[in-house]
């Protein structure tokens, strides 16, 4: 999907948290004179790898866009927050299965006040909060939601996946039932119906404004939304200079109250080393996406706090099932046995990653690691290769992303290890931009991939990567039994049935080993504790 994890992804949740604290005690907004005298403008500066290319998320999945969309737009629902078990100061979304809660989820309303799913599971009805204004002062109505989803059906960008996974193919399936009531009608009971409303890919646009700025050759306001905000979120974009910086200003009329940070500046700093030095020097408050060693250096520095929590983000190597010898399951298993995971976790990630012992993120519901057998074992790898008929090994190519500094060392470590069992691989460095071209073309025998499925649901995750018809099945994995199982799991709401189904899916997939499973990266966020306001909960990403 996109290179973004699931944990507390949205900057707005951070800032709202900080806002709550601020309102609670540090800089009381109810004493305007004191606030004015203090002359604090609460600016947060973030060093990011890239500014958003486009703010229209329909067409842009770049990092900068995701981050921005999170702050500029709101969803219908969100997950409740809990403290991370290992890092109590970090908040994370509660995505576990709660059998005692309605629909087994710990949800909170955002733009939606009430929500219900019909007993047969085919209709999801949402009652919107009233009096919510967009940044163009238009009130939120069901029309906005309808327009947003209709747009997905028409524009053919990311939309089709979001609608397809719910089984929505026609505008008629999204109905306006009242000024503030909207309903979604899906053909089969779909466990993702509510989860999709939390998905960052599905925020709500201000349809009134968008319709005003549309034209006949741009009926869905694509040009406008590329550079402007029309939504109900806490921030608006005030300046967007691509390649340099993006500036977001807080909205005083945000329905949850003005966010604590008045201004958020995203500065584009392409090299992680530069982002590190900016943080160390105090020029920025948060530095995103540093290298593992850089995080470690920061943990030793004073004035910087690093929070590291397990997330849904994982990195693995696709083994292309259509290219010999990876069409042979024993070879793929051998490749898994030969991968020096512990070395990689130590030398490349410095402990900031865990082994990926399953095919869906460790923190997702229904995850199980009981089918994991692939701890590094070169003898087993060699034996498997011999069984498969490759006693003398074979040659292949591993492609990796030049723009991701961890991939080359991992590739080199893997190469050395494979040499020991007679497998010679050539390393193919691909420039960052053409890298996705390579991945999506599915012509490489082995290629790295990093990703995080956005909806914390085993059906969603497996559908992405292991459904033979999925666009994202980059390893060309085909197993009809798995296809059927995934599908059936997406058509029932019964948590027990789903558990059994997806356990079986994981069993099959782990046996088939379409990937050389590597690691789940921890989501790290180093930030300078803002001494100006000292929020008790540190800002984290």
């Amino acid at each position, binding site marked *: 999907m996109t290179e973004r994890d699931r944990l507390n992804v949205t900057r707005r949740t951070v800032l709202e948290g900080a806002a709550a604290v601020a309102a609670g005690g540090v800089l009381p907004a109810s004493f305007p004179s004191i606030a004015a005298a203090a002359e604090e403008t609460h600016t947060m500066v973030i060093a990011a790898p890239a500014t958003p290319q486009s703010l229209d998320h329909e067409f842009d999945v770049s990092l900068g866009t995701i981050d921005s969309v999170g702050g500029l737009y709101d969803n219908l629902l969100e997950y409740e927050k809990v403290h991370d078990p290992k890092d109590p100061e970090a908040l994370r979304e509660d995505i576990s299965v709660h059998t005692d809660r309605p629909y087994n989820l710990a949800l909170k309303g955002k733009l939606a006040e009430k929500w219900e799913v019909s007993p047969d599971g085919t209709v999801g009805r949402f009652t919107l909060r009233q009096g919510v204004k967009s940044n163009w002062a238009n009130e939120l109505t069901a029309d906005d939601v309808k327009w947003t989803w209709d747009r997905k059906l028409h524009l053919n960008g990311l939309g089709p996946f979001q609608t397809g996974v719910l089984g929505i193919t026609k505008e008629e399936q999204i109905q306006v039932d009242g000024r503030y009531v909207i309903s979604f009608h899906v053909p089969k009971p779909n466990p993702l119906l509510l989860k999709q409303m939390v998905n960052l890919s599905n925020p709500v646009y201000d349809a009134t404004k968008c319709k005003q700025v549309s034209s006949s050759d741009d009926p869905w306001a694509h040009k406008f939304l590329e550079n402007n905000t029309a939504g109900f979120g806490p921030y608006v974009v005030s300046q967007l200079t691509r390649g340099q910086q993006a500036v977001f200003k807080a909205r005083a009329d945000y329905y949850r109250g003005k966010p604590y940070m008045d201004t958020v500046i995203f500065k584009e700093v392409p*090299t*992680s*080393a*530069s982002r*590190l*030095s900016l943080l160390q020097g105090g020029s920025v408050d948060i530095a995103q996406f540093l*290298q593992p*060693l*850089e995080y*470690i*250096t920061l943990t030793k520095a004073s004035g910087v706090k690093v929070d590291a929590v397990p997330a849904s983000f994982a990195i693995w190597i696709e083994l292309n099932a259509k290219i010999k010898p990876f069409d042979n399951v024993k070879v793929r298993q051998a490749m898994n046995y030969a991968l*020096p995971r512990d*070395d*990689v976790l*130590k*030398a*490349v990630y410095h402990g900031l990653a865990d082994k990926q012992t399953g095919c869906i993120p460790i923190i997702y519901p229904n995850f199980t690691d009981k089918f994991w057998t692939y701890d590094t074992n070169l003898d087993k790898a060699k034996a498997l290769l011999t069984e498969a008929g490759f006693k003398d090994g074979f040659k292949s190519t591993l492609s990796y992303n*030049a723009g991701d*500094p961890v991939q*080359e*060392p991992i*590739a*080199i*470590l893997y*190469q*050395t290890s494979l*040499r020991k069992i007679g497998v010679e691989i*050539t*390393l*193919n*460095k691909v*420039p960052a931009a053409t890298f996705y071209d390579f991945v999506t073309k599915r012509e490489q025998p082995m290629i790295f991939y990093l990703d995080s499925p956005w909806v914390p649901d085993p059906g969603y995750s497996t559908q992405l990567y292991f459904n033979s018809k999925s666009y994202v099945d980059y390893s060309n994995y085909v197993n009809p039994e798995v296809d059927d199982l995934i599908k059936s799991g997406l058509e029932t709401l019964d948590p027990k049935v789903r558990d059994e189904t997806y356990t079986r899916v994981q069993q099959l997939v782990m046996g088939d080993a379409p990937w050389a499973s590597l690691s789940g990266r921890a989501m790290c966020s180093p930030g300078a504790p803002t001494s100006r306001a000292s929020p008790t909960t540190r800002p984290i990403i």
Partner: protein
Amino acid sequence: MALSPNQPGGPIWSTGRRGAGGRARFALRYFIQLLRTHPVYAGGYVIVAVVAIFALAAPLVAPYSPITADPSVYLLPPSFSHLFGTDVTGMDVLSRVIFAPRIDLAIALVGTGLSAAIGTFLGALVGYHQDARGVPRFLSGFVMRSADVLQAFPVFVFAIALVAVFGQSIASVVFAIAFVNIPIYLRLMRSQVMNIRRMRYVEAAYVSGMPDSYIIRRHVVPNAIAPVLAQLSVNIGWSILLTAGLSFVGAGVRAPTPEWGSMIATGFPNIMTGQWWPSLFPGLALAVTVYGFGIIGASIEFMADPRRRRTLANAGGPIRDPGE
């Protein structure tokens, strides 16, 4: 007739009475004299010799394998067991620095060799037929304008584009280097040839009925060669830098092939976290090597300049220049 010192590149070895052997012997004695009186030049030759030895005998000299990762010893600072420390995958920096000339030197030599060969050939033709009429004139013009266009291209962007087009491999880097250097030799040779063509002895040969090819081969080329050699030497150094630059941007050789530029690039993020050795040593080796080639170029220039050669003759005793 004394040659005015303002006229560089005059006939070095006139087509005189001694044969090629005699000329070579004199050249050698001048050379040794040069090294004796200017130890800096000797230093340059030593540097290049050492680098060449590394390139050829790397497996014998290097303590570790340059492409085998050993994650248990990653990012160790310089120590007795690893004189230059280790990099992020545990590979020994010293061994990689020693193996790198194989690639860097090979690319530079082949690349500049190719460009020199093509460039001087074209340049000689173009310069010789400069005043001709008809087709040769038109072709000369075309070649020169093409060279102009190629040279107006920003070198670095051009090289990266070429590597991107042909895929990441040693061959494409060689090709890129060869391509961007051709215009240099073309121009150099052309201007040399145009100068020499006006010399009396060339006129004499022409008048006595020698064919063009003979004149070019026997008179023009040997006299034009020295500046080309000097340029070649400097160019090799510059090509090594270009290769390193390409690798730094990510358009160079494949990992984990040891190559100075890519080593510097891989070590770049480490500088900020305090590990300076993965980038420092390859850069030093690079600078020293290029410096060595630069000195060789300077020495060739020295030898080619009759005035400065005279200082050698005076300093060292009786070596008579056959041409004067």
